[in-house]
């Protein structure tokens, strides 16, 4: 699953640690999500969407597509 977390974080000039604190997860988890190595759960994806004030599908996209 692709995501725009790194871009959104960079736009706000946030570190991974800052984003991790906002999402209440570890920095390693944020890093793994940004690299596409770990897919977040739906609650965590909603949390990220709320944090950035966006829809979930604007942050996370299915790589396989329709």
């Amino acid at each position, binding site marked *: 699953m692709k995501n725009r977390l790194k871009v959104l974080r960079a736009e706000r000039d946030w570190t991974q640690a800052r984003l991790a604190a906002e999402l209440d997860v570890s920095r390693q*988890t944020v890093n793994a999500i940004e690299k596409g190595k770990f897919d977040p759960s739906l609650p965590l994806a909603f949390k990220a969407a709320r944090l950035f004030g966006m829809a979930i599908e604007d942050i996370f996209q299915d790589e396989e597509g329709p």
Partner: protein
Amino acid sequence: MNTSKTDTGGWQARQRKNTVRLRYWTSAWVLSLAFAAFGPKLLWDFNTGLTILGVVINLAVGFGMIVANKQYVQGLDEMHRKIFLDAGALSLGIGLVCGLGYELLEDIKLIAFQPEISHLIILMCLTFLAGLIMGHRKYQ
């Protein structure tokens, strides 16, 4: 809505607290196990009442350790919980297969010595540790 947790370090603080609690309970359990194992011979000359007390204390502290471990796992974030779960599954599977295989070796006279439960525990601990390392490397 103020969602900032940067100053309070929510996840990190919670994790540190749970880790310290688990460390205390694990240390207490190891001590209580040593107390129950060596006490009868070295401290109270196999007095039945004291021996039972030692075993009961060991079980009670062991239960506390299990609860602390449960709280530790619940406090992990979802990726670390997955790593922990995967390592646990690997350890349990290898422990079951190798443990029963090891026991079988003695039953069918392929080894001359009695299999020790401690060997199985060591194998499961090493497997769990290897599983944790592999999990962390996978998501690095």
